[in-house]
């Protein structure tokens, strides 16, 4: 479980996040949603420690990450896997070397065990056999899968995905969503996913945090969202015609 308390983040005088508090649960796909520019990426980076919040605390279980010393921080980082918006694979290395990288850095296995683990992960995300390809030789969806494989290779307790669907077609998007959701359940991971994709919301939104201009404006599950009386939330989620029809049907 991850808990954030009153996170405030300012960039050169402009307040981007306004006292955001929330809880994210293990074994669930926790979604952070909001318009482009609402602060999703900044919030995610504050949670993982790539940004330092000006104020507030982030708890991993009962460990306060924001106040932790170097060694505790490093321990927590080893429990984190992250999939960046653009995949962030190492472009000069093969898919195999990308996925093996965390093992080489921190793993204590033999070479053979590492190889087995890499193949396992590639198979789990559905791109087995791409070992010797370079990231640039794979499609966007496959790159996302490779990035997920790299993120889970060390059996993380926490998985972060920044817009895993961006730039993907609807079918591939759904598959990536399912993959993340399955992995989350399978290994009881605490997953936090940034998205502005309606399909993702309906499909895997077990715990949704809605950001509006850096302010938490709504939270709940995908079942509850149809009964929301938050105007900003409704106008964001039910913006398209098809979504409006869905809401009326409920």
């Amino acid at each position: 479980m991850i808990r954030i308390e009153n996170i405030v983040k300012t960039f050169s005088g402009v307040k981007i996040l306004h006292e955001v508090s929330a809880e994210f649960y293990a074994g669930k796909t926790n979604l952070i949603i909001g318009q482009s520019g609402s602060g999703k990426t900044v919030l995610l980076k504050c949670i993982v420690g790539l940004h330092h919040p000006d104020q507030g605390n982030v708890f991993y279980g009962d460990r306060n990450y924001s106040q932790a010393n170097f060694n505790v921080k490093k321990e927590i980082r080893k429990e984190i896997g992250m999939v960046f918006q653009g995949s962030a694979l190492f472009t000069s290395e093969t898919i195999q070397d990308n996925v093996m990288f965390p093992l080489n850095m921190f793993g204590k296995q033999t070479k053979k065990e590492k190889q087995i683990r890499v193949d396992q992960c590639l198979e789990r995300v559905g791109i087995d056999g791409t070992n010797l390809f370079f990231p640039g030789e794979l499609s966007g969806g496959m790159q996302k899968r490779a990035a997920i494989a790299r993120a889970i290779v060390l059996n993380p307790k926490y998985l972060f995905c920044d817009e895993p669907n961006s730039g993907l077609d609807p079918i591939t998007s759904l598959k990536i969503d399912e993959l993340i959701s399955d992995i989350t359940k399978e290994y009881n991971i605490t997953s936090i996913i940034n998205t502005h994709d309606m399909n993702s919301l309906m499909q895997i939104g077990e715990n949704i945090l809605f950001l509006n201009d850096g302010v938490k404006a709504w939270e709940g599950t995908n079942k509850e969202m149809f009964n929301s009386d938050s105007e900003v939330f409704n106008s964001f989620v039910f913006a398209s015609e098809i979504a409006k029809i869905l809401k009326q049907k409920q």
Partner: protein
Amino acid sequence: MKIFTHIGQYLLLMGKVFSRPERLRIFLKQVFKEIEIIGMNSLGIVAIVSVFMGAVLTLQVGINFVHPLIPNYLIGLTVRDTMILEFASTIICLILAGKAGSNIASEIGTMRITDQIDALEIMGVNSATHLILPKVIAALLFFPILTLISIILGVAGGIGVSLLTDVVTFYDYVDGLRLFFHPYYILYTMVKMLIYAFIITTVSSYHGYFTNGGALEVGKSSTKAVVYSIIAILVMDLVITQLMLT
């Protein structure tokens, strides 16, 4: 004022760079890879420039030293000392700043804007040590070799001229090469080379590491890396020469 912010940020980055690498084996592998990229791949340009400059220098000195009171062996001596003192370290590094420096800045800059550096940090890897330290070590190890090669090839270019033209005879030229040799000059040029190696790799890494934006900014970082490396090299040339030669 901005220059002080840069220097402060640069020093902070250096503090982060010089820490123990996570895994020694991976680190050594990186160093060898960098020796190939920044060192070996520069061999060609260093060789070509050195041979031609040695040849041209010999011609120019030869043409200007036509006076009965100036002994002909001074030609070889002048070429040799010019190559050692200034060419094989400073001039070669001005070229390397353009080649290796822009290469380093654009590589690290691209990693920055595509979140690869953040990905390293998230894994718990010190990205500064992992990316920059191997480049610094590789340059410190390999650049002095480039200096030696440059001296040898520059002098060889002169030998070529002495054989092919009648500006100077081969015997006079080689005579000059062997006269009044100061081993201290070699030390001086090697000290310069080590300092330049450090400047080129760290200044270029710095500009790449703090790239902000997109592909255009990577280009700008790479240009800045070259310009600031060159300025720093010239300033240090002056300082070290004052300290070591006068």
